[in-house]
């Protein structure tokens, strides 16, 4: 019977329990207040029902004590909810360093996913259990929202930027993927499944599908688009050498600096003039329309590998690394 009438979603991820605990706290508080109000209303309505059409009750003005009491107590409870809720939110804002990164591109009306090893899927996501997984997400068209109810995670997928979520599945199983931000005709068909598997099964699955890693594809794209003709990887040309750039601070022309993260690389490909590296002219053409969102993610994956193989700190265009190093993408830590 309960199979047909689920009342509570499975706790599929390590983070789910914390969200549920918070949920039960709020339910408990709500139940107390709701029941109290209902009982008061019912008891008063019956006990003080009008017994004669001419009766006039004694007026009561109000009470500062009660007003203060029932302002301050809800406020304190509210603040406790806020603190707890903010803690849960912040704890999940930043993915762990060792997270396995998978890339998501939303599109009317499907989810396209790529694994660093090169496996590509549509509306399906295979992940290993017991391992943090970070999704880096963007969209080709409108706003979507990536939602896995069993993991209690959701994030809008906004055009023009990379939003992240992360989770760690606890046990093998199949879970829902929903698009939860309305996106047009087949919004409700933009659904899929997460397949959480043991690490061994996951390795087998990976071996079965991938032909070329994302970074390799990115490298091919890098050649194909002609990036390599200017961004000489062996020295300094008219364009910055991209070795060792990713994850480090870049000094900008006209002052200012920026950390070269996914968003910066993306912006530099599509809107090259926006943040030009100090010491270079804004001569790079835009690649908007020449490379799609998936290709961009592959290029980013490739550029990331340039920083992890042989970072060359002497390259003048970047300042020394600032302690913060990035996860070697494509080489998931196990």
């Amino acid at each position, binding site marked *: 019977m309960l199979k047909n009438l689920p009342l509570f979603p499975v706790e599929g991820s390590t983070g789910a329990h914390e969200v549920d605990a918070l949920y039960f706290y709020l339910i408990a508080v709500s139940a107390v207040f709701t029941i109290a109000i209902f009982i008061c209303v019912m008891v008063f309505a019956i006990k003080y029902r009008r017994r004669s059409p001419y009766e006039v009750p004694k007026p009561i003005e109000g009470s500062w004590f009660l007003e203060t009491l029932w302002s301050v107590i809800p406020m304190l409870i509210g603040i406790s909810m806020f603190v707890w809720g903010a803690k849960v939110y912040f704890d999940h804002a930043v993915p762990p360093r060792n997270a396995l990164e998978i890339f998501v591109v939303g599109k009317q009306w499907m989810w396209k996913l790529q694994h660093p090893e090169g496996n590509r899927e549509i509306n399906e996501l295979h992940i290993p259990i017991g391992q943090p997984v970070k999704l880096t997400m963007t969209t080709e068209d409108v706003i979507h929202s990536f939602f896995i109810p069993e993991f209690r995670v959701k994030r809008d997928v906004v055009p023009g930027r990379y939003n992240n979520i992360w989770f760690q599945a606890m046990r093998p199983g199949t879970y829902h993927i929903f698009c939860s931000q309305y996106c047009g005709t087949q919004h409700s068909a933009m659904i899929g499944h997460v397949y959480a598997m043991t690490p061994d099964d996951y390795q087998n699955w990976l071996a079965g599908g991938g032909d070329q890693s994302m970074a390799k594809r990115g490298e091919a794209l890098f050649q194909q688009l002609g990036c390599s003709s200017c961004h000489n990887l062996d020295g300094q040309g008219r364009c910055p050498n991209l070795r060792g750039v990713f994850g480090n601070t870049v000094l900008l022309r*006209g002052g200012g600096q920026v950390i070269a993260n996914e968003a910066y690389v993306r912006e530099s490909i599509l*809107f*090259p*003039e926006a943040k030009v590296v100090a010491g270079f002219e*804004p001569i790079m053409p835009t690649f908007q329309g020449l490379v799609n969102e998936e290709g961009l993610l592959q290029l980013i994956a490739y550029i990331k590998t340039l920083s992890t193989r042989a970072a060359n700190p002497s390259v003048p265009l970047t300042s020394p690394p600032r302690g913060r190093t990035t996860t070697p993408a494509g080489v998931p830590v196990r």
Partner: protein
Amino acid sequence: MSDAPATVTHPAFAHQFDNLGQQRDVAVFGMWVFLVTEIMFFGGLFAGYTVYRSMYPHAFAIASQYMNVTVGALNTGVLICSSLTMVLAVQAAQLGRNRVVIWFLLATIAFGLVFLGVKAYEYHEKWVEQVVPGFNFHIHLPEARQIELLMVFYFVMTGMHALHMVIGVGLLSYLIWRASKDEFGPDYFNPVDNIGLYWHFVDIVWIFLFPMLYLIGAHLPRMIHE
């Protein structure tokens, strides 16, 4: 109902009020509440502008160099003059000098039309320079996209302002018609007063638009090629 029999005979007196004083009080206050909605209406544009300017300060500075600062300043002056004639028209209406009211209103309309004419000239200039987003936008600077963004705000903001001016000119013409019937005097000049408030408000909007759109990049070396 007949607390103030003297004023009830006035043709403009409305039945829901006790006397003309209350009627005038209500009219002015109502106008101010309306102007508050106008503040928020333009405020939405200001908020969008502020966000994008904080994102792209450099591109906005370049884009503002497409504006003709001298012409903009001149137009600001024209609008200030129209505010002066407007406030003088209100005063004349209060004194019951309806002939004078008409002359000052005509002057206000004239200044308003000059402003709109200059604005049209500026729009034409933008068309020639091919910086009209959506219709005729061809510039080849690296920052072209963000320049387009500012130009969109330029046209929406000044367009909304110009629309308010056009409505204002219409309202002023209506006032002239009523003044020609010798309707205004110390007891009743609410329409002149209220439309005056509206006109001054439109002036204030321009007072902010001028530095926000024209003066951002005026101090920087010329960055666009003619």
